[in-house]
């Protein structure tokens, strides 16, 4: 088994969805997460607040500095993510397709460095 990160690329410059739209979106992504649980593929899921709430700590000269905002000031930011466990990339990609349709955002699929337990 391998583990994959399905990262949601969220466009912060896009107009905010209405409350109903947001609710529908949450319902759709929640359904995908439930499907993952039922299939035994689910490891973790989390939605993130936008970059206004983000702080970066950088190391240097044995100490650290603190800055407001995300690593890069781009309009695409990490909006949330799933961690899933499956046999191969094809399975991960088919979950990612469901996630992309559910949340309406691009999904980046990245394998974890080491498949836990082989």
């Amino acid at each position: 088994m391998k583990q994959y990160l399905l990262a949601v690329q969220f466009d912060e410059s896009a107009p905010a969805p209405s409350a109903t739209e947001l609710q529908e979106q949450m319902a759709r992504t929640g359904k995908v997460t439930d499907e993952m649980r039922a299939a035994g593929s689910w490891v973790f899921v989390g939605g993130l607040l936008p970059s206004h709430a983000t702080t970066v700590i950088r190391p240097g000269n044995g100490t650290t500095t603190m800055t407001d905002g995300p690593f890069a000031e781009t309009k695409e930011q990490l909006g949330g993510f799933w961690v899933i466990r499956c046999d191969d990339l094809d399975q991960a990609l088919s979950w990612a397709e469901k996630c992309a349709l559910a949340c309406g955002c691009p999904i980046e699929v990245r394998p974890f460095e080491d498949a836990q337990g082989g």
Partner: protein
Amino acid sequence: MDLDSVFRAEYGRCVATLTRMLGDIGLAEDAVQDAFAVAVHKWDEPPPNPGAWIVTTARNRAIDRLRRESTREARHAQALLLHHPKEPEEGGPVRDDQLRMIFTCCHPALSPLAQTALTLRLLGGLEVAEIARAYLVPEATVAQRIVRAKKKIRDAGIPYRVPEAAELPDRLTSVLTVLYLVFNEGYTSTSGELLRTDLCLEAVRLARALAELMPDEPEVIGLLALLLLTEARRPARVGPSGELVVLAEQDRSLWNRELIAEGHELVRRCLRRAQPGPYQLQAAINAVHTDGPATDWAQVLALYDQLLQHTPTPIVALNRAVAVAELHGPAPALAAIDELDLPGYHLLPATRADLLARLGRTADAIAAYDEAITLATNDTERTFLETRRARLELEA
């Protein structure tokens, strides 16, 4: 048969089989190369079944090598070898290592160039330099793409299997492109002799296997028909002293009637379905070329018009211009290719040279032949162009 031709013929098959046994393409390539290194010392004459010898030796070499190593991948591969010593686990409807390999190499998570480069390298046994010439890209780019693609297959967990029925249609487009390019590399090699018959036959074999797997995909049938109708003319394509013979001058009695009949039947099957696509249209064009004693150029041009709508590429436009010249004369054809941009592609100046010569513009034609001769990478094609050029100089 010398070792070089054994390598050409068996490399792809052996790597595909070893990849199934070892679960890793890189390990499989190393093992197959080890086995060929052993063959250099051991063979006075290749054994009756050189492929089987290479697979067995590669497998034993891989076991030795893996026992010495203690990485996680090595232990995993060793376990695979010991638990599945001979028979593959069936991951799809087709029991064919090479087909499994082609779907892995053509996985849509890989870039298009990486897909084809990998397939030509792993299934066709082509050198990086040959692939680079076929694609008109620098050698270093191809080498880098192949390394990165193999790394991604391993690290991202791209499976080594034929996709399940539901995924198959999506995976097909890139597989068809790759088979088409493998055949083309065999039909007009990028270097050395004109033909690499082994590649042509391999592409036809893989296309047949694919058509058996997906009999309801019109483009799969179209590709098989196209390859068969082109392959059928191969015996007439090279003259007695190895020189290139163009379609119009070919001895049609040398064409393979059986393949032509099979190709025509497949084209008719496509027509009945009425879902035309680029491969079916090219197959139809070749069906016209191989129908009766001479080509019906009006039909060919109509088909090229359709093809250009489906795939508006400069290469299709160039081929269409050849039909224009046959039907309406060289002047409109020359006008049609005037704007085309195909850097490094020798057939553009070669076509222009032929049209200029027909218009009596000998000096311009000679200059265009010079350009084509510089760009041609295949000895036979270069000789053909030089002969044409020399004939013009005599007339001038």
